[in-house]
């Protein structure tokens, strides 16, 4: 196997050096005309595969195209036009924990995928699937003759190995990844035939396909059995020696170092591991690396509408910069072909717009998938009973919401690019909920003051309000300035608006790890975070019910109650319990229309409870794409569940001549 790999690596060297080496060889060997002409003729006649692959086929170093493609390859309709082969695409990575920057570009090859609009699940590795009526059994039909990037067949055995032997192995995964679990029980995966594999669940799991289309649903296609089984004790008894030779402590560490996992750096740290991705690692993402390069997968299983094998682009080069500013410099001087990560902050937009001409790029609009730009979570389960009573009062929250001058914030902080909003699916989404999204968003200090007066928060000598126990109405809102500088600006304005009501807050700018620790321990008075669930309401409903132990920051103990099935945390009020039930029902309902009704019922309750205070609709972001890079949609979602730009299919991007 290592022989094959070497020859592949060599012939993939970037075009210039490959050409110069060939010229050199021709000179030495003197058989130039004989060797080169059939290759050229073939490439011109067919052009169903990249010229370099055609050359390798002609030299008998690679099987012909029809043997490399599955019998029924996935046909991709190009976004604008059928492309041409060639070119190197440049992107930037940050030095640490930026592995998902690679995942987003190449690693989106799960059993199923999202459409461009982020509304529908489409076939991908699986060409079709059958679901039973109760949504407990899913049979995926794989593509016959499909191959891993090393040419070995991809079959149902690989999927069974990945789930049954890997994710369900207690040493490798202490608990089975949650995408593969429903009702506390993991899926049982069995092989039906070489090209059919069945996932069986104990309880209905209607959201399984949607979850599979997200990055966290990639396990079924992550581990090639023929390669990864050599690091698994079930298949290799001599593993201890290998572990010692690699200077590692145990086999799960070795397995992870070689085969990776969905989102750890070592997924891209081993150039030998076969994948199903359009490009495969050539220079790996390791601790000492200064760049990552990837070359086309000669066995990639997708074609364009002309039947030409994808990807169009030969190679990806991702330079690792330690500093985001140098990434900006690279971008404005035109040395980056497509990028949004790390440069998409609002402050960078003017600089990037001004330099469009010089850098030769255009701006791509990224539709925010979130609902709320800056959600304020008052801790309704605060450890201090007086604070808890204050925050748990709906009218108090209502008064605070009415006290915010949202128009001023939108104009000053977000340059007018948003609208007053609470939470809920974004306008235009089929589940958009008018009341949930717009209630209490008008600026009405008179009414706010009246409510606070009525609740008994009298003004003290300095015009600031006092709680019934005589303490000042004062609380701190946690915010991470390095992550969300705009939230700090917003909160400073909110502080001024609320001071006019007689409510004093502290904008508590803290470091991110501390932010999480305070949240986990339920130590915070209040916190801000962008509110998700705008385009993916059912995948991330943390603001609609207390469901996310790190995210539903208005009541972390309630989420613990929900996640642990009532064993830990605190028992939530009736409205929450009903929503938890409805959410579970919605996830178990395969019929979209019925699911929509259940979700509406849930959102009605959320709107009545009014737990979180929103400011404005999540602001769209942006990225850049070079002018000569085509087939890039000018508008796409920005999300983790829709890991942009992956679902826009970078394999069909191409460079014009």
């Amino acid at each position: 196997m290592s022989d094959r790999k070497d020859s592949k690596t060599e012939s993939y060297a970037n075009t210039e050096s490959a050409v110069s080496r060939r010229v050199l060889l021709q000179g030495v060997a003197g058989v130039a005309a004989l060797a080169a002409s059939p290759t050229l003729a073939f490439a011109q006649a067919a052009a169903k595969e990249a010229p370099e692959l055609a050359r390798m086929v002609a030299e008998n170093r690679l099987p012909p195209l029809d043997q490399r493609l599955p019998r029924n390859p996935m046909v991709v309709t190009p976004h604008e036009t059928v492309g041409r082969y060639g070119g190197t695409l440049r992107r930037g990575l940050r030095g640490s924990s930026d592995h998902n920057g690679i995942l987003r570009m190449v690693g989106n090859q799960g059993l199923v995928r999202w459409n461009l609009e982020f509304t529908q699940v489409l076939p991908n590795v699986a060409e079709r699937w059958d679901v039973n009526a109760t949504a407990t059994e899913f049979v995926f039909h794989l593509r016959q003759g499909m191959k891993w990037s090393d040419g070995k067949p991809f079959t149902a055995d690989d999927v069974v190995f990945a789930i049954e032997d890997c994710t369900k192995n207690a040493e490798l995964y202490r608990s089975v990844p949650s995408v593969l679990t429903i009702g506390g029980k993991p899926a049982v995966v069995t092989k039906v035939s070489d090209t059919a594999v069945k996932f069986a669940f104990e309880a209905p799991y209607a959201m399984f396909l949607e979850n599979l289309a997200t990055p966290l649903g990639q396990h079924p296609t992550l581990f090639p059995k023929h390669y990864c089984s050599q690091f698994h004790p079930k298949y290799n008894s001599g593993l201890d020696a290998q572990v010692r030779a690699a200077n590692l402590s145990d086999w799960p560490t070795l397995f992870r170092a070689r085969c990776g996992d969905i989102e750890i750096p070592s997924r891209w740290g081993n150039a030998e591991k076969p994948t199903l991705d359009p490009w495969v690692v050539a220079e790996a993402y390791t601790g000492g690396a200064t760049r990552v390069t990837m070359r086309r997968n000669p066995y990639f299983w997708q074609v364009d509408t002309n039947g030409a094998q994808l990807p169009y682009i030969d190679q990806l080069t991702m330079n690792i910069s330690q500093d985001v500013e140098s990434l900006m410099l690279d971008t404005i001087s035109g040395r980056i072909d497509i990028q949004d990560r790390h440069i998409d902050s609002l402050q960078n937009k003017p600089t990037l717009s001004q330099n469009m001409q010089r850098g030769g790029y255009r701006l791509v609009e990224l539709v925010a998938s979130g609902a709320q730009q800056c959600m304020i979570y008052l801790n309704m389960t605060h450890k201090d009973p007086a604070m808890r009573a204050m925050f748990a009062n709906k009218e108090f929250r209502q008064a605070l919401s009415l006290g915010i001058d949202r128009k001023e914030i939108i104009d000053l902080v977000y340059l007018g690019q948003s609208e007053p909003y609470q939470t809920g699916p974004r306008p235009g989404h089929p589940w958009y909920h008018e009341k949930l999204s717009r209630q209490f968003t008008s600026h009405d200090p008179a009414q706010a003051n009246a409510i606070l007066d009525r609740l008994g928060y009298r003004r003290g000598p300095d015009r600031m309000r006092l709680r019934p126990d005589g303490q000042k109405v004062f609380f701190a809102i946690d915010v991470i300035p390095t992550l969300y500088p705009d939230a700090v600006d917003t909160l400073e304005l909110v502080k001024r608006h609320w001071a006019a009501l007689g409510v004093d807050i502290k904008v508590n700018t803290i470091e991110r790890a501390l932010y999480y620790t305070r949240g986990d321990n339920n130590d915070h008075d209040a916190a801000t975070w962008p509110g998700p669930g705008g385009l993916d309401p059912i995948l991330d409903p943390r603001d609609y019910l207390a469901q996310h132990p790190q995210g539903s920051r208005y009541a972390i103990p309630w989420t613990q109650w929900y996640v642990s099935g009532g064993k830990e945390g605190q028992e939530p009020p009736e409205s929450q319990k009903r929503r938890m039930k409805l959410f579970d029902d919605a996830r178990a309902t395969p019929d979209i229309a019925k699911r929509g009704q259940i979700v509406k019922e849930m959102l009605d309750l959320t709107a009545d409870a009014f737990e979180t205070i929103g400011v404005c609709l999540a602001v769209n972001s942006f990225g850049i794409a070079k002018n000569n890079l085509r087939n890039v949609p000018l508008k796409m979602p920005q999300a983790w569940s829709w890991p942009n730009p992956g679902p826009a299919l970078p394999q069909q991007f191409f460079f014009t001549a």
Partner: protein
Amino acid sequence: MLRFIVSRLLWMIPSLVALSFLSFVLIELPPGDYVTTYIATLAASNEVVDQNTAADLRARFGLDQPMIVQYFKWIVGIVTEGNFGLSFEWQQPVSELIWERMSLTLLLTVSTLLLTWGLALPIGVFSAVKKYSVGDYIATFFSFLGLAIPSFLLALVLMYVAAVKFGQDVGGLFSEPYVAAPWSFGKVLDLLSHLWVPVVILAVSGTASLIRVMRANMLDELNKPYVTTARAKGLSEFALLVKYPLRVALNPFISTIAWLLPNLVSGSVIVAIVLSLPTAGPMLLQSLMSQDMYLAGAFVLLICALTLLGSLVSDILLALVDPRIRLE
């Protein structure tokens, strides 16, 4: 002399144990742990870690154990097997990661040092001997300028000008085709053509301060009676300078060797980050920021060991150069 060296070496053992413990505690001090930082980093790109995975990671890396247990596991591994542990982030052995970057770091630091000394010593001596001459004023002006400009700012400005005005790339140590190429004559030339940028940037502030130190030291010595005596004996002005006052003025330099060795690892972190240099500095900072305990711990331990070694070396050198110093 030998007894002195041996006893100093023996003293280093308890010092290192104490230092390693202290550094481990310091790295543990910030709130949260590697897993919290990891989750927070991903959250910055709106990415989510599977809820089951977070607990898994903590247990797998032993982060759920008390700190003292974590420390002992680590230190026992180092002492008994020379195993510095596994980097959480990269799933690679720590020693592998550190050595991978050491050679280029060494090259960069040594070149910077040579340039700094090569410039600062003669200029410092010159501006002391020709005190208040035009040359002295020029040297003084530029050395204060060099002291005043932070080197990372210099690097940023240089990069901006190169990128925006000339469309050139000054980051990194190799140009595109050579990054992954095996070592060859062409690659060495390429390295040299890139190396001067960071070397000059790094040398600027060092040179500036050394010029000032050297000038002050020399001025102290130049009026001493032994200089007059030597001059009276008829020594040429140059031979006189090199033979007597320069040797004495060099003492402070030799004392600074103690800081040189640890600087190999931790020096120039910010400049290296700005210029995207593949040296050890950025990796150290990264490991500290992501709370990658064992990688950071190994770095800190290495720096401590080098500091101790460096001070020993500079003590020995000082004794050799200046006979007035005793080893008791």
